[in-house]
């Protein structure tokens, strides 16, 4: 579905998605939907802004997503609210799915999810009987070791209620970063060429071999989240990662278990960093290649609803920076595989002719219409793309039928224990972005929040520990610790803590676990065991934080008046 369709849904199930912080302009559509009479069910452990305007807030215990989703399916089936005609005509695998969800009665799910059985019933009824119903999900679904199963579980809900194939229905991930969708579309994935064409299918590989003029590997590549392990622990020399070419990412700040990431970058024979600002990863790079930034170059991004849109040059780069595509092409040419392109449009034209779903999305069309949502298969100006997928219940499978996929819930990997009695989940900051090298260098935005960030804790927990708002605390997990400020709030449940991941000093990824979902290889950023400790000497702590900040800024090349060096 498209972002503009949100406000016209009859019912919105907003699952693990905090639009107000991560996508304020998408959240605006939710507010407008509410004004138009849309029912809102919000499944989130925190009282988010969406929860505040919801009809039903399912404030579930972190890590219990699939138990809740399966219980909603159980209610929909047992109360006769399923769309049996849609199931029969457009889907497969329903009987096997029923066997899985049979035991997930609301009473069974209640102790797992901490949601009263009748609330689950009320939510399932509202979702199943208010048409059209749309599901939006975010990182509160994806950043768990059981993530893909929950996405499929949400798709099951939409399938069994016939909520596919028309406007303002279906399920949609709201992509975090500006071009997550685009990086996937372009095949920056270990198992897929551009256009979601699998590297293990011989006919597809042959097509790309012919176009690129070289034999290609038929082995699925290494997921990014396996890299530290493949550097540190891989025994096979041919599989051990010896060189790491990092382009527009900062794993030494954004990846889980930072101590392990630092060790891996340190031990890797050759690390290349291509970026716009100095960052934590740069401290471990053997070579730094300065790229032009957004605003200094041309290209196309894909937004969360599959929309290709142009990015345009605003100003000339001041310095010896080069566009990313040019740097990559020059290295390739120097290694004996020539890449000669004059501009981004030439690259784009090569790409769309190799990807049937994108073939029709020419620069000309994107310019003329302001954007094109793929699939767009035909170059004629009449094919303007596809606002929503699976029209009329026709799915992108061989027999055009959708598949039910039921799995059992399992708990997160690292549970609370005597030593680490609380849980930590990482979340977004509204005014800052990702590793903060962009927003932290914007004078207006840096005034909104600064180091060392906050840990959100329930007010009862704070009272028990005699912690006041703004007090510096130490937060620890099995893997590491950091210092941050305490933010008492009733928006979070007792026993749970939340930290935003922008901060160098309050760096929550010192604590997070690198355990992964087995299919998506996404880390469990949303759940690990932690402990909060009071710091008695606050004066020392404040001084310590200021010193740490100065030291890191000096490492990043900022003149802090203390003889800093790059």
């Amino acid at each position, binding site marked *: 579905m498209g972002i503009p369709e949100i406000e016209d849904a009859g019912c919105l199930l907003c699952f693990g998605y905090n639009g107000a912080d991560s996508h304020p302009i998408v959240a605006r559509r939710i507010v407008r939907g509410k004004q138009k009479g849309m029912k809102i069910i919000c499944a989130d452990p925190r009282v988010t802004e969406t929860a505040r305007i919801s009809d039903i807030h399912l404030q579930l215990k972190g890590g219990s997503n699939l138990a809740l989703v399966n219980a909603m399916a159980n209610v929909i089936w047992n109360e006769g609210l399923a769309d049996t005609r849609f199931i029969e005509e457009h889907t497969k695998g329903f009987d096997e799915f029923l066997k899985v969800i049979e035991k997930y009665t609301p009473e069974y799910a209640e102790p797992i999810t901490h949601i009263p059985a009748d609330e689950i019933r009320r939510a399932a009824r509202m979702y199943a009987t208010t048409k059209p119903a749309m599901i939006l999900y975010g990182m509160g679904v994806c950043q768990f070791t059981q993530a893909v199963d929950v996405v499929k579980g949400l798709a099951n809900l939409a399938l069994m209620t016939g909520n596919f194939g028309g406007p303002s229905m279906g399920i949609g991930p709201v992509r975090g970063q*500006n071009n997550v969708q685009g990086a996937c579309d372009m095949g920056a994935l270990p198992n897929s060429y551009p256009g979601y064409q699998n590297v293990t299918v011989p006919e597809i590989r042959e097509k790309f071999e012919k176009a690129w003029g070289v034999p290609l590997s038929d082995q699925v590549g290494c997921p990014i989240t396996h890299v530290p392990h*493949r550097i540190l622990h891989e025994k096979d020399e041919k599989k051990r990662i010896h060189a790491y070419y990092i382009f527009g*990412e900062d794993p030494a700040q954004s990846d889980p278990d930072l101590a392990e990431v630092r060790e891996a970058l340190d031990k890797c024979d050759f690390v290349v960093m291509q970026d716009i600002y100095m960052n934590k990863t740069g401290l471990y790079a053997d070579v730094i*290649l300065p790229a032009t930034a*957004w605003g200094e170059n041309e290209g196309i991004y894909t937004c969360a609803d599959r929309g290709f849109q142009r990015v345009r040059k605003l100003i000339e780069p001041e310095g010896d*920076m080069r566009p990313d595509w040019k740097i*990559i092409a020059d290295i390739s040419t120097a290694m004996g595989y020539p890449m000669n392109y004059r501009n981004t449009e030439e690259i784009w034209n090569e790409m769309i002719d190799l990807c049937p779903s994108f073939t029709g999305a020419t620069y000309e069309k994107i310019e003329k219409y302001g954007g094109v949502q793929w699939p767009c298969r035909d170059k004629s100006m009449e094919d303007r793309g596809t606002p929503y997928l699976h029209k009329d219940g026709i799915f992108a499978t061989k027999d055009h039928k959708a598949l039910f996929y039921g799995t059992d819930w399992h708990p997160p990997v690292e549970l609370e224990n005597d030593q680490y009695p609380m849980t930590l989940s990482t979340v977004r900051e509204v005014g800052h972005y*990702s590793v903060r090298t962009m927003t932290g260098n914007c004078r207006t935005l840096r005034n909104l929040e600064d180091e060392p960030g906050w840990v959100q804790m329930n007010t009862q927990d704070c009272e028990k520990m005699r912690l006041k708002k703004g007090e510096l605390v130490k937060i620890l997990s099995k893997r590491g610790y950091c210092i941050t400020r305490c933010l008492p709030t009733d928006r979070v449940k007792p026993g749970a803590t939340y930290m935003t991941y922008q901060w160098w000093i309050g760096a929550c990824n010192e604590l997070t676990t690198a355990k992964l979902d087995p299919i998506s290889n996404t880390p469990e950023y949303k759940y690990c065991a932690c402990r909060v400790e009071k710091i008695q000497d606050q004066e020392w702590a404040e001084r310590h934080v200021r010193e740490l900040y100065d030291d890191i800024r000096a490492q990043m090349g900022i003149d802090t008046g203390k003889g800093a060096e790059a």
Partner: protein
Amino acid sequence: MALKQVQTTCAYCGAGCQIMFTVDTDANKIVEAVPADGRTNAGTLCLKGHYGWDYLNDPQILTKRLRKPMIRKGGKKSPLVEVSWEEAISYVAERLGEIKEKYGPDSIMGTGSARGAGNEANYLMQKFMRACIGTNNVDHCARI
């Protein structure tokens, strides 16, 4: 002061908001950002859309803009030394070539970028890893 107006897509989240910028081409500076009537944002912007472009001015708050290629000539932990693009490109090509020769293509990992670089650069990065290096070891930070 010569002014021009340019519409572009916001650099931050996946909402894909359209912004109209006014640029002073003599000074090579952005003067103003106002919301444009994009399909998804319909004339609205959030804080980051309104104010998130100031990093292009390199105000030296948090980190320093990278402006010249650099190499640690003395190995790990040695200082970064500014070099020409020719030297940087041939050094990277040489080192990657040696590692590929010695350990094979699957010993090299490359990343795409879900941020500012855009689709064309991601296409080239995966093509470089697959066709030039010879491995499917390419991935980026975000996934479903």
